[in-house]
């Protein structure tokens, strides 16, 4: 059974995977007990793949990638099980210099708030040149030329003006483009985009997504795209993972998952989008709230909100098992029909 599951998840390329997370469990100790942020999370990002991590706030999607790049505050979390391989290497076995090296050359992260990732007191040009020179032994002039080239690639009309500007002089969309330029500047193998467009307007968001998509396809860079917005992920990603309360509940090729969702949570998430129903009709809200991860319920974490739950769902958490074209973690997958299809909404 598991063989079949991993068969489906196998990336198509022959190159080794960019990121493999295998059965990762991670918790944050607090005074009130341990918050079980991740539970048995298995993810594989193949070479040149664009993969989405979708879920509501607090489901652990950011924690997953931050753990992989060791960006979580040291000493404030505990890995209780599982392993991570970043281009075949274990980030937990690296020392600080190796990590710096990996974070700059192999993996780049784009965060939601671009202002926090830029130094407010240094001109954009200098920051770009600094990043380029840190990873390639090139002259100042050459680095500057490279920087200008990348900014042009980001469809920035006047790269000269932008390079002379300080971060605060730019709009949010422009800053995010500069950051994407920076992320691609040293040709990383993997880009982690953590809600990079959530703070931006839709017209700007469309530009940013296009830029990420085109550039990644052209350079063969793998992308992990984290978002709470299923529509954005559907437009951008080849495959996706749906997370709920620190667990992966469903994953597979984007079309397969969204057209025939098997997990009740994925189905409910799609059903509560207003674009799927008649104006003013009742939206299908998910009753209840996400479980408290200090004291999660036994069995399936979605069980308290799930209309399909039975005794089996109490007993123990479901493991990932194949559904048509993708895999799903649900005990009731045999009986649940893929009730809605993304294409149905397309009238």
């Amino acid at each position, binding site marked *: 059974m598991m063989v079949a599951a991993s068969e489906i998840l196998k990336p198509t390329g022959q190159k080794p995977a960019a990121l493999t997370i295998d059965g990762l469990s991670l918790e*944050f100790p*607090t005074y009130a007990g341990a*918050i079980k942020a991740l539970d048995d999370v298995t993810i594989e990002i193949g070479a040149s793949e664009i993969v989405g991590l979708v879920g509501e706030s*607090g489901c652990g999607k950011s924690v997953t990638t931050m753990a992989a790049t060791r*960006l*979580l505050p040291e000493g404030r979390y505990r890995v209780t099980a599982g392993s991570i391989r970043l281009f075949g290497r274990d980030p937990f076995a690296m020392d600080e210099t190796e990590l710096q090296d990996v974070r700059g050359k192999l993996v780049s992260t784009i965060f939601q708030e671009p202002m926090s990732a830029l130094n407010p007191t240094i001109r954009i040009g200098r920051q770009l040149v600094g990043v380029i020179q840190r990873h390639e032994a090139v002259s100042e002039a050459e680095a500057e030329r490279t920087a200008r080239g990348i900014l042009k690639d980001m469809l920035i009309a006047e790269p000269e003006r932008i390079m002379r500007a300080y971060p605060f002089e730019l709009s949010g969309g422009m800053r995010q483009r500069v950051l994407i330029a920076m992320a691609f500047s040293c040709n990383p193998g993997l880009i982690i985009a953590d809600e990079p467009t959530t703070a931006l307007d839709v017209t700007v968001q469309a530009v940013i997504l296009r830029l990420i998509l085109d550039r990644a396809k052209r350079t063969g860079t793998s992308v992990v795209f984290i978002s709470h917005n299923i529509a954005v992920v559907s437009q951008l990603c080849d495959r996706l993972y749906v997370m709920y309360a620190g667990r992966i509940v469903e994953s597979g090729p984007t079309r397969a998952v969204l057209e025939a969702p098997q997990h009740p949570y994925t189905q409910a998430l799609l059903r509560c989008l207003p674009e799927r129903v008649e104006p003013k009709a009742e939206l299908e809200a998910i009753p209840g709230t996400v479980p*408290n991860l200090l004291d999660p319920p036994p069995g399936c974490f979605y069980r308290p909100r799930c209309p399909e739950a039975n005794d089996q769902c109490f007993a123990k958490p479901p493991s990932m098992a194949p559904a048509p074209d993708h895999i799903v973690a649900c005990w009731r997958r045999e009986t649940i029909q893929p009730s809605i299809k993304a294409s149905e909404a397309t009238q």
Partner: protein
Amino acid sequence: MMSVASSTTQSVAAAAGWKSRLHFFWYLTRRSPLTLVGAVIILMVIVMIVAAPLIAPYNPDKLMLSARLQPPSALHWFGTDEVGRDLFSRIIYGSRASCVAAFMIVLISVSIGVVIGCMSAILGGRIDTAIMRLMDVIMALPALVLAMALAAALGPSLVNSMLAVAMVRIPAYVRLARGQTLSLRERVFVKAARTFGASPLYILRWHVLPNAMSPIIVQATLDLGGIVLIAAALSFIGLGAQPPTSEWGALVSTGRNYILDQWWYCTFPGLAILITAMGCNLLGDGIRDMLDPRLGGR
């Protein structure tokens, strides 16, 4: 990346309610035992002030000329002074003058400062500018010199010195309260209250003061330590409590005459001042850490 951890901590604190606040206090005490030390010191000083007659073995003003300048012994724990009064008892009673004075100074400057600060922020414009410039002037006055001037004009007394010190401390609270008011005024819940037609006074009473109080209380606790020192200094130079009232600064001042041969005379009142001031600072730091959500989960 810090935000992930801190927001989880916050939401946990939020989810669990007041019961976990108790937990939280213990957690903090375990993690920062110095806060506990500060709290115990302040508690002891309060007990001393309230229950002085029960604790002190002797009448602090009773002369015993036969037992002048006795070194510490089982009979007189901290020794006796130049007229044979028991120093332990005088220090216990002295806490009343010293600490109550410091507390009153803080109370006066906080209440006046907060009122002026909030008014200044709400009225704004020229009045605000005028008030803030006046505060700059007051801030530039040295507390001790002002106290001496007042003493020269009105005669030396504890109350006059207290007023002088309180006046110099006011600007600090004006600035703090004004800053808090200005930032709270921009908060959405205050905007919401404005759309209900709430008057500035209503907003001050129900939204600004309750939310501005915690940083002000922290500042006041931290200040208390420094003011215990200033009050002692005033008495030391003869502008504070007048004899025969027992006061720590005054005790150090008289003891200074005997510092070479009778070490205990200066040492014990000095230690009392030191420990009390330190207790205030430790407790103030602890409260600040406790109220600051960013430090909460550390």
